[in-house]
């Protein structure tokens, strides 16, 4: 579903070159549920933006759903759904259902298919109470459920979420998590999310990618991640330990990940 090969992205900031992402390689198969972790500024969002076609990589190759994202942006948009926790993709002044109708028209979803799909999503995400409310009047939890529904109306094979639970209360968070788990388990939709909430990771993700200083620092299961730091039992403490002990600037090149499956770590 996703294949990244030696991907790098540099930015020129006041004459000097900053490597936001360097030499990143990983594969995500159809049906996986993957969480992407990393401290602020580690390169998570840059990675997500390269996978969704927003940014073009400066080196390496990305293939998502069989397409090169930045070159086949509109083709890719029909095959994937994207949710930004920090900003809405809905129309601020329009009632939620009008936003959905616009999404239907933009994505050219057949009217009957749309009606059925919206019915399902409205039930699963409990949207019924505020379909007629303008988006600007929705609570953050309602808005996020609306955004997730909008990203799924065209039934994409891959759903990418950038911090979907940020700022949500416990109940809304549980609702979103439950929905994502069912989406992945029952519909087989591949899910990739970034988060700072380790509860998301523990409850949802079968696989974790840890990005630090623009490199892949860990790739494996949650249990493997926990096993990395002997003596720490809570995932929170493990991740804090990894973030704190990561080199300020990478002094050694990351060890190439062995072809078998034992997780490697360079943090």
């Amino acid at each position: 579903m996703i294949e990244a090969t030696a991907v790098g992205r540099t930015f020129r900031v006041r004459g000097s070159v900053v490597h936001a992402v360097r030499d990143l390689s990983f594969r995500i198969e159809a049906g996986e549920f993957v969480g992407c972790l990393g401290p602020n500024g580690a390169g998570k969002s840059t990675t997500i933006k390269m996978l969704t076609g927003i940014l073009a990589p400066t080196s390496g190759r990305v293939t998502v759903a069989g397409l090169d994202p930045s070159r086949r942006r509109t083709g890719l948009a029909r095959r994937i759904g994207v949710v930004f926790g920090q900003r809405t993709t809905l129309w601020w002044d329009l009632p939620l259902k009008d936003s959905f109708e616009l999404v239907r028209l933009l994505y050219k979803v057949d009217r009957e298919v749309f009606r059925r799909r919206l019915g399902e999503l409205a039930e699963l995400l409990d949207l019924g109470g505020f379909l007629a409310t303008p988006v600007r009047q929705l609570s953050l939890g309602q808005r996020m459920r609306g955004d997730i529904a909008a990203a799924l109306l065209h039934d994409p094979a891959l759903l990418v979420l950038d911090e979907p639970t940020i700022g949500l209360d416990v109940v809304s968070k549980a609702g979103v998590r439950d929905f994502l788990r069912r989406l992945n388990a029952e519909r087989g939709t591949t899910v990739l999310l970034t988060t700072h909430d380790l509860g998301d990771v523990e409850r949802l993700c079968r696989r974790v990618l840890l990005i630090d200083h623009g490199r892949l620092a860990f790739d494996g299961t949650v249990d493997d991640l926990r096993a990395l730091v002997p003596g720490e039992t809570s995932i929170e403490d493990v991740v804090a330990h990894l973030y704190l002990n990561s080199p300020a600037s990478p002094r050694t090149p990351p060890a190439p990940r062995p072809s078998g499956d034992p997780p490697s770590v360079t943090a």
Partner: protein
Amino acid sequence: MVRTYALLAWAWTRAAAQYPLSFAVMTVAGFVTSGLDAAVIWVIFANTRSLAGFGVAEVMFLYGASSLAFTVADLLFGNVDRISRHIRAGTLDVFLIRPASPFVQVAVDQFVPHRVGRVVQRAVMLGLALSRLGVPPGRAWMIPVMVASGIVIFAALFALSGAVQFLLTGAPEVANAFTYGGAQLTQYPLNVYGADLVRGVTYVLPLAFVNWQPGLYVLGREDPLGLPPLLRFLSPVAALALAGAAALAWRAGIRRYRSTGS
């Protein structure tokens, strides 16, 4: 592209229609204020019988043709100059994940239907000028051609000014100098300006093709600056060339877009 534009414009129009009184007031206000804008011509002609050799109806015609083209381009594409705001706020990311042209989405975002008031006023002004001029049918065909070319030229300027903002994110004003400045410049007969400026807007930034060169043909006038007479038929060519350059620049801008933090 047209379909996407129409869909989104309709959505914004419906959103504006939630406040019908405000919509009506703004439309009428646009009509009236742009009428006052045009009244400057009467002030000028209260003091003189001709402006650089052109009579009041001729100046009204040049002004009307240019500003009709500009107000239509501004209605449809004027919001492209908000691109630096979209870049800074991160909303451009949202446009880029939809299966539609980001140019169309930026252009139609916050579409303001009440700008139609100004378009109507300019159309009325052009109509009045033409009724006083009595242009022979043999030359009148050029009028729609010049207005259409003018719309394309101003739209291309908006696109170029948007493309420039991918490089200079903080400086929409620089870009505005060309769009709004261009609209101001072409409202009067170009020979009121220096010959070098006229050559510049003929051969470099093709503003002279909005109304001046084709307008001379419609009015049946010699070029006061003696430029080649063929130029007066080249408005569509100049418009397409500028539109091509704008499309390339826009594409390059999107390609080197760097997005914001989170």
